[in-house]
């Protein structure tokens, strides 16, 4: 069944149909939230709150074909609320990334995915969220979620890739 038809039914009061949307997006959304907050319990709570808010405010959703971006906007706001409440935003500077890289590169001698995951984790939030969102959203959708031009999204991703590249060292140097 087409997504917009399901949304139409939910708007008309058939709330049970909302379960189809939950089923469709829950894993992707959970993954995005989980990597954003790094705690399974918190991620579950935020996911639940996201779907509840989406259900409650489904009548405010007007843009056809942009449901995924709309859902991600709610999730992102919930993640931001979480950070605001717990004051966990610690933007990391280049130096921190360098230090981290030196130690892990020496210890491993080769690139491991865990190491990449740590590097993503340590990126400034605006760059990290673009990488996380790009796993499930197109660049246009990310621009809609972040309410910024497509060029800004690409620039943020480019900066993030360059930082990771720098941390990975000579093998990946330009």
């Amino acid at each position, binding site marked *: 069944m087409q997504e917009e038809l399901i949304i139409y039914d939910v708007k008309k009061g058939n709330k049970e149909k909302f379960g189809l949307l939950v089923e469709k997006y829950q*894993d992707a959304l*959970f993954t995005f939230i989980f990597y954003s907050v790094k705690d399974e319990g918190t991620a579950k709570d935020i996911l*639940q709150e996201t779907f*509840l808010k989406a259900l409650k405010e489904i009548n405010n959703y007007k843009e056809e074909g942009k449901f995924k971006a709309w859902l991600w906007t709610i999730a992102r706001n919930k993640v931001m609320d979480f950070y605001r409440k717990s004051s966990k935003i610690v933007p990391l500077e280049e130096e921190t990334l360098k230090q981290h890289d030196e130690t892990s590169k020496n210890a491993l001698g080769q690139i491991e*995915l865990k190491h990449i995951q740590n590097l993503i984790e340590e990126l400034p939030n605006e760059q990290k969220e673009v990488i996380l969102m790009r796993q499930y959203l197109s660049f246009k959708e990310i621009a809609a979620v972040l309410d910024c031009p497509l060029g800004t999204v690409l620039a943020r991703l*480019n900066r993030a890739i360059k930082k*990771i*590249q720098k941390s990975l060292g000579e093998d990946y140097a330009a």
Partner: protein
Amino acid sequence: MPHNKKYEEQALLYAYGELDDSEEMDFLDHLRECKACQNIIKITALTSAALPEHKAPVLNLQESEEPSWFFKIKEFFSKMKLSRPVLIGGAAACCVAVLVSVLYPRQTQNEGYMYFADSIYAQVGNIETDIDTLLEEINSL
């Protein structure tokens, strides 16, 4: 063509399968020779591989569908978009109103109790006088 910002963006778009067909041929020609763009594509692939999908836990979307009264009040006031001084003033006025409504009836109630006590004392006094007269009558007998 040497590596430049345009190719960097195209490398990102290509890595995620979003590069326009019209630009793809030109970019692929560049990519063959450009190590920087090859590395961008390698790193985007690594970042995707480093972020595997997690299965969402079972959700209970029923449990908090009915918001608490506190949440309803908070929601009501947040919809009114009142400024902080107005909210504080309103809250203070409410507190004063509650205090007055609680304390004033209590005061009048206390006054009522005192009238009641006085009347009892008066009646007791009358009874005492009656007993005294009775005792006097008994003594005179």
